[in-house]
């Protein structure tokens, strides 16, 4: 009962802190920003790593909403498909493979209080410096911003002007595939040798 009360209060505190930290007048932006920052608070603060991963999903959904608001329809689809459907599921798999029942590795302890306070001060200071820089810089914002489908433009650019990075990414993905299989397969062979 007491634990549930503490959990509810901390969720409330995270939502209040994220609504204080995010700026913006647009109500839709504000709601998505509160969801994103609340999820990020969960990622950095929750001791249970599975709950942190589920909070990461909230953050990814919020970022996908931002992409829709910014007219990036293809990127929003990528965000949902690759991040939520791929990376998050992979993270959950890794968590479940590396946890043992009732052990510390499941609980993900944070470091000592001095390290926590120091890193919080460092990151908070960096955040306020960045906010200051953003507030004092004037950006050349265009007056009219039409929103249409970007799929054809992205496809045209990827196979014409950006074809070399595209090929490099293709080779990199192949290397990733082979490297991952080699990493895991060596372990499986070693375990089979140990068993026989």
């Amino acid at each position, binding site marked *: 009962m007491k634990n549930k009360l503490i959990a509810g209060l901390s969720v409330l505190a995270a939502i209040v802190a994220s609504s204080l930290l995010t700026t913006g007048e647009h109500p839709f932006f504000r709601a998505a920003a509160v969801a994103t920052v609340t999820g990020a608070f969960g990622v*950095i603060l929750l001791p249970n790593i599975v709950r942190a991963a589920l909070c990461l999903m909230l953050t990814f959904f919020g970022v996908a909403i931002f992409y829709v608001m910014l007219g*990036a329809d293809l990127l929003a689809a990528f965000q949902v498909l690759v991040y939520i459907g791929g990376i998050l599921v992979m993270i959950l798999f890794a968590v479940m493979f590396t946890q043992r029942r009732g052990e510390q590795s499941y609980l993900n302890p944070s470091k000592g209080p001095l390290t926590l306070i120091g890193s919080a001060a460092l990151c908070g200071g960096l955040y306020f410096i960045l906010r200051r820089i*953003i507030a004092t810089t004037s950006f050349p*914002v265009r007056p009219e911003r039409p929103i249409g489908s970007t799929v054809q433009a992205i496809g045209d650019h990827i196979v014409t002007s950006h074809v070399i990075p595209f090929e490099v990414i293709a080779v990199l993905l192949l290397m990733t595939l082979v490297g991952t299989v080699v990493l895991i397969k060596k372990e499986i062979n070693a375990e089979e040798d140990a068993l026989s």
Partner: protein
Amino acid sequence: MNEALLTDYLNLAALLFCMGLFAIISRRNTVAVLMGVELILNAANINFIAFSHYVTGHVDGHIFAAFVIMLAAAEAAVGLAIVLVVYRNFRNINIDSVSTLRN
């Protein structure tokens, strides 16, 4: 109803970046550190798309963000494979207790 501004998106991306940095510094579980990296990559992507929408008007920012997403997928695959190998060798994934590459 007034529109969301460029600086709103930049502030939000800065906040996400700093939270990801905090996760990388303060977390002890390697998977949580990888989650912090994902937060930082998302913050960079928000900046790419926001500048593309508000300043340049080209889709170049979208293409860079797509490349970042693909790189994030590759990084997560290799990182989590390494986490699994480390777990099999050391029986935990605390980032402090794993300091050698071979035992």
